[in-house]
């Protein structure tokens, strides 16, 4: 135990001495938090829309008014002397709505008036969103126009739980925490490990009778402490700037954060043990750690959408469980009963990473 502490103390003083790394250890997580927290908007707003109203009647104007009633769309004029479709070609609008000349007349006659909608399908996500939004608006317009002679047979009364205002930060920021607290502590730990090999100082460690687990735990402890500071900063800012609030008992989350950081550090050490140069270590963490935490964790893309073989991998991505845990803590707030499984999985995966790293290092010798 004493040697574990000696290792940790040395690691911390080395870290502290390198002011650039200290600054990066704090600045990089913050930057990531801000970039993701402010820049990612899954819901689109102010989409440019071109309207060609060939009818120009009270009904058609009412329909147009309905379209721009929310901030989802903003009107743009189509290019002078060209057809409205040209606005799509030139990228000035995302969609074009053409109202036919006999729009009002057809409606008055009780017939169905047809409105032509052209959507720019380049961005599939936006296209789907536009399609839904235009359908919904048209539906609402229909309801308003047809006087309710009889009530509809079924009416679904929907209420959003946990996040009634559909605040996006409540979705994004807890997810960012999972990415940030996975990537940076593991990066620092991996570099610390591989640096010993790079500089040859590892031979001194091998030449003593320090055991593999003592080495891993010593280094792990130091970077767990550093990761803890990062976590405090990230959580603090999440609450201070992005308005996150504990939705229930924070204890499972705080404990879960600790084991998640430990798992992240073990992952970094594992990469550091395998890699033979700083470059390889950084790339290893960036590729394996960052990509899985970003894409296979449910941070942005729903877990249910991940296709079959990849979905298996998502089960061994610790960030997945941590993001579930943090979303629960800041949005749902169900306490231990909702998150014990996630915490247990993080502990299991962390232990697994530690065991593999220990196995790789067990001889504490130079490779042949």
């Amino acid at each position, binding site marked *: 135990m004493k040697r574990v502490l000696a290792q940790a103390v040395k690691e911390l003083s*080395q870290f502290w001495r390198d002011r650039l790394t200290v600054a990066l250890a704090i600045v990089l997580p913050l930057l990531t938090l801000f970039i993701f927290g402010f820049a990612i908007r899954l819901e689109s707003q102010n989409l440019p829309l071109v309207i060609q109203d060939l009818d120009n009647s009270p009904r058609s104007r009412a329909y147009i008014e309905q379209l721009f009633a929310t901030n989802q769309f903003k009107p743009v004029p189509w290019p002078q002397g060209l057809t409205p479709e040209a606005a799509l070609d030139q990228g000035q609008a995302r969609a074009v709505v053409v109202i036919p000349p006999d729009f009002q007349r057809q409606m008055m006659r009780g017939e169905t008036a047809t409105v032509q909608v052209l959507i720019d399908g380049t961005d599939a996500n936006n296209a789907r969103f536009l399609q839904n939004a235009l359908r919904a608006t048209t539906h609402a317009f229909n309801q308003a126009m047809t006087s309710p002679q009889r009530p509809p047979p079924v009416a679904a009364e929907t209420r959003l739980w946990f996040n009634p205002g559909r605040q996006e930060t409540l979705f994004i920021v807890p997810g960012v925490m999972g990415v940030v607290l996975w990537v940076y502590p593991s990066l620092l730990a991996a570099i610390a490990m591989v640096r010993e090999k790079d500089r040859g100082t590892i031979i001194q460690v091998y030449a003593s009778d320090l055991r593999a687990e003592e080495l891993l735990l010593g280094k792990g402890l130091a970077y767990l402490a550093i990761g803890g500071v990062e976590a405090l900063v990230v959580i603090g800012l999440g609450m201070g700037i992005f308005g996150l609030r504990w939705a229930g008992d924070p204890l499972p989350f705080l404990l879960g954060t600790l084991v998640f950081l430990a798992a992240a550090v073990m992952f970094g050490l594992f990469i550091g043990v395998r890699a033979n140069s700083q470059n390889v270590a950084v790339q290893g963490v960036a590729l394996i750690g960052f990509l899985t935490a970003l894409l296979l964790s449910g941070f942005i893309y729903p877990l249910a959408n991940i296709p079959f073989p990849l979905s298996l991998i998502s089960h061994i991505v610790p960030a997945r469980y941590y993001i579930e845990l943090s979303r629960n803590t800041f949005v749902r707030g169900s306490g231990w009963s909702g998150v014990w499984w996630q915490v247990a999985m993080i502990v299991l995966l962390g232990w697994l990473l530690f065991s593999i790293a220990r196995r790789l290092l067990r001889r504490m010798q130079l490779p042949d």
Partner: protein
Amino acid sequence: MSLPLSSPIHRTSAGAVAAGDTEPVIAVQGLRKTYGSTLAVDGIDLVVYPGEVVGLIGPDGAGKTTTFHILAGVMEASAGEVRVLGQWPRHARLQTGYLTQQFSLYLDLSLEENLRYTAGLRRVPTARYEERRDRYLALMGLAPFKARLAGQLSGGMKQKLALCCALVSQPQILLLDEPTTGVDPVSRREFWDVLATLAATEGTTIVVATPYLDEAERCDRIALMYRGQIHQIGTIQELRDSLGLHRLEAHLASVQDLDRAAATLLSQNPPNQPPTIADVQTFGDRLDVLVSEVEGGIAELRSRLAAQAIPLTSLEVLPPTLENVFVTRLRQHTSDPPFIPFPTPRVPRPMPPLAIAATHLGKTFGDFQAVQGVNLEIRYGEIYGLLGANGAGKTTVIKMLCGLLAPTSGTMALAGQTENLRGAAIRQRLGYMSQKFTLYDDLTIRQNLEFYCGVYGIPRSQRGDRIAWVLTTCGLADQDQLITGRLPQGWKQRVAFGASVMHEPEILFLDEPTSGVDPLARRQFWRLIEDLARRGTAILVTTHYLEEAEHCNRMGFMVAGELVAQGSPRDIKASQPGQLVELVVDPIPAAAAYLKGVMAPWRVSVFGDRLHVVVDHPELALPRLQSQLQAAGLQLRSLRPIPFTLEDAFIGLVQRQETGP
């Protein structure tokens, strides 16, 4: 093949124990180590007794580092018995201190933090740690720098700190893998004095590898290692005796005659009688001739020189050096690397008399005077050595002369030009090779050479010849498609040298060109340099190998930015005031400690089982020394004057400059 192990020395000093009745601390039998298909260590037998200092010498790739790794327990042997303190090396790790070739220090930690961490690793109790830390830091003269970062220490100080770290757990065995590579002569001698003290006062057993053959002479026993095998082991005396040759140092009236003299001495011996002259080596101002028998050898030498009408000014009979022993042994196993003269003859050009001329050259960085008042005159065809401790300003001088750095004061002329020294025209006529000379590791050898041909603007028609010359000289003729990064350091160095002289520079700067090169290759290297000089190239070389500096025609010693002495190797040695005496005293450690108390410490150094002492006025000092030793209860067995080596001269100069006589 391996010669029978010689019996270990029977030391009578404090920590020493006579062999025979003691268990060896290291016992190695039939040790082999393979990496994939390469054989790094090929059957080593080695026995080391308590309190011994054993030197392992050999070129790069001889298997020294692998042997150390195995002895330190950080690597497993492929075959063979290895016992350290009667146990597996792994189990003896806490009793072993290992100094690796790379600085095994954390450069971003302070001295104290480095020591504390090592102590923690090696389970040293706090109270003992503090006591040892203070003791060893004081012994190494590092105590004032306790709080400084290891990265801010000089090379020599780093090595001493690394030694402190190894010592803090008070190991019974110290394994030192080239601890003095890249360390200047003064620091090197201090380092060895510390080792001698440790072996003597604490009974530490030391196994040390070194590329400097002169300092290996300070070991109790020396093992010659080559291609994974120990070819010979014994005391320096035994090694010299086994060679059965004597060394004659011949000074000629004119330095210009050296090559002719060497050629005539090397020419065929009469077939019916055994050769009296075994080997000839040219140095900057003398010839070293190895002869099998003194009388006959001298007669032969005199008659051959007389036949060529080459006047001889002096002739001295001296014991062969370790380099002689090593090279002779190596020649029994490999042939000399080929010597191939430069392919295209130099087109004679009208030349100014001086290649490099500098007057009152000075350079100031901020308020630090790195170089001041340096006057240099180097002629075409001359090899000039610039020597000095780390930080003495050698590299700054070279950089100014190359045009990489603008001087703060003074004037200089390169190849007769004083203007536009940084221009392309003059650069084409310079060559520069530094220790860190970078070939591109990820290109093939041929691609590297082609690149440098392009850089130096070698005409396309000559490129093929020049590249072929470099490749054959390096012994890499069929391997030009090899990726450069895969070459061992010593080979890379040769290719780099080839690349830097391909364009036949008129002036060549060599900054520590031979570090990490084995003795045979080093000899070939110097033949090449001498060949270039003969063709009229002016060569300025820096080196830490003072042995090697003897190859220079003239040399200059720099101390603290100033050139304090210039001259031929002989002049410099002769200009040393006083006399060097060799003492055999009992017990050595007590005598060394005592003498360092009564005279300046730099004047006394331990060489294996004897002491070297510098005295200024031998006629007065020697009788006093004898009575002083007697009064101190030390037994003086013998005392004889010996000639100064360049290293002695160097250390004397530096110390006198720094501390006053």
